[in-house]
């Protein structure tokens, strides 16, 4: 028996060991289960906390929902308003459609009119083309005309050049003509005069008074003709002579002229009253001729007065200096004034006062060439005053 007991003991030991093991396992499992429980409790607490947060969230969401509901009410009101607006728009649209329909009709009218207008336009375009064509023709004609004008101008210019040359030639010819007239015309007159004088001197005693008188007449006439030629030449030369301006003392000039005057025996010598004369910028030889002609005129037309005064003076007027020669001689009737300055025009007979009638024409031409004026005032039998103006000379 012992072996069986040992066997049985071993089995019992083994059972106890196993039970121990089991107890230990159970304890271990318990520990684990406790741990699990602790974890689960912690989880529950976590869930509870989450629930609190979730409840708060829900409360917030409810408030939000209320807000939304309020907004929805506003949105609904807005929608109603918009619907009303839409109806209004629809009504307006109806009107607008009617208007559109009317406008369409109008457009059709317009289209019809436009069609007519287009036709008109097409016609006008054709017309325009015609006009353009005409314009081209006209332009061509214009160009031709311009070409002709240019050509004419060129021809004209050429003609001007030719004419100028001709004129210069004529002028030159006139110069040599004057020379010829002066030279060749005087020669035969001089011969007539000279031979007549020889007859008078050498054969006068053999002729009676009638014969001598006729010869004297020939001498006087030939002399007169010589004077006419000289005066005419002097006059024609004036137009061609160059005017050379220089300062001239008019007082000195007139004084020397009066000083040089020559009087024949028994001639009526006038009293000269020479007043102050401003200087002038003139061609001395020409102005000298003016003074000579005016002073000798004054002397000539005073010759029948017993005592006679000739006053020479000057005054300023409007930027001009007016010089004058005043006599108390025969004078003339102012109704013949327009003949006074004409070439070969005379207001007195040869018998009364000799002269060729060119002196005052020369005066006028010279004064003209100095940009001045000459005029006269006269009373028959009382005397004449001749005036000539010259631009004032500033010195």
């Amino acid at each position, binding site marked *: 028996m012992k072996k069986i007991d040992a066997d049985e003991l071993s089995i019992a030991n083994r059972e106890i060991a196993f039970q121990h093991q089991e107890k230990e396992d159970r304890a271990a499992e318990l520990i684990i289960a406790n741990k699990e429980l602790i974890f689960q409790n912690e989880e529950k607490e976590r869930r509870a906390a989450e629930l609190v947060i979730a409840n708060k969230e829900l409360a917030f969401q409810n408030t939000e929902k209320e807000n939304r509901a309020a907004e929805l009410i506003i949105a609904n009101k807005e929608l109603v308003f918009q619907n009303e607006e839409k109806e209004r728009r629809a009504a307006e649209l109806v009107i607008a459609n009617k208007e559109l329909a009317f406008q369409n009709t109008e457009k059709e009218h317009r289209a019809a009119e436009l069609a007519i207008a287009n036709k008109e336009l097409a016609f006008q375009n054709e017309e325009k083309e015609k006009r353009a064509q005409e314009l081209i023709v006209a332009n061509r004609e214009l160009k031709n005309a311009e070409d002709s004008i240019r050509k004419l101008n060129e021809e004209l210019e050429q003609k001007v050049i030719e004419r100028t040359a001709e004129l210069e030639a004529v002028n030159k010819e006139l110069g040599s003509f004057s020379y010829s007239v002066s030279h060749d015309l005087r020669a035969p007159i001089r011969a007539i005069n000279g031979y007549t004088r020889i007859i008078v001197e050498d054969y006068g005693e053999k002729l009676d008074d009638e014969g001598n008188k006729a010869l004297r007449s020939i001498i006087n006439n030939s*002399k007169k003709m010589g004077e006419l030629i000289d005066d005419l030449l002097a006059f024609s030369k004036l137009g061609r002579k160059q005017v050379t301006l220089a300062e001239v003392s008019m007082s000195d000039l007139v004084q020397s002229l009066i000083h040089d005057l020559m009087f024949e025996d028994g001639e009526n010598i006038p009293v000269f009253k020479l007043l102050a004369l401003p200087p002038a910028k003139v061609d001395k030889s020409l102005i000298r001729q003016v003074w000579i002609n005016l002073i000798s005129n004054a002397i000539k037309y005073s010759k029948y007065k017993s005592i006679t005064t000739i006053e020479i003076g000057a005054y300023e007027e409007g930027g001009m200096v007016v010089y004058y020669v005043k006599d108390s001689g025969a004078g003339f009737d102012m109704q013949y004034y327009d003949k006074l300055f004409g070439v070969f025009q005379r207001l007195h007979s040869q018998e009364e006062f000799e002269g060729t009638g060119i002196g005052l024409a020369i005066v006028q031409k010279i004064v003209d060439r100095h940009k001045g004026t000459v005029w006269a005032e006269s009373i028959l039998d009382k005397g004449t005053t001749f005036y000539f103006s010259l631009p004032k000379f500033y010195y």
Partner: protein
Amino acid sequence: MNYDDIEILFAEDSADDAVFTIRALTKSGFSNKLHHVVDGAAALDFLFCRGIYADRHNTHFPKLILLDLKMPKVSGIQVLEAVKSDPKLKSIPVVMLTSSNEGPDIERCFELGANSYIVKPVDSDNFFHAIKEIGMYWMILSQPAH
């Protein structure tokens, strides 16, 4: 012919003007000492002892030369120029005569040394006085070159 005592050489192509000039000079007492030629060429021949005057002595010269301006062949101006550019002749007074005071000749004459200038007046009385005066003046003033 003896030309040595000629005092006035007178060159004038117009026969009429020559008549009047010679008459004026004659009346003034110069006629017998005057020689008249009808153009400038003859005047030069006379003065330079050439042509028909070849036998004239070139030691005797006139005291006065009267020259018409416009003459055939050789003009008065050309004679004047020849006289005034010749050392032997240039001191002889030369008086120019012309029919008119027209033309550019007057200035040229004085440039060349003419001593006087007479425009022949239409009135022969004036001409006579002019010739007489100018003749006397230059004849008395004149100092012969030799």
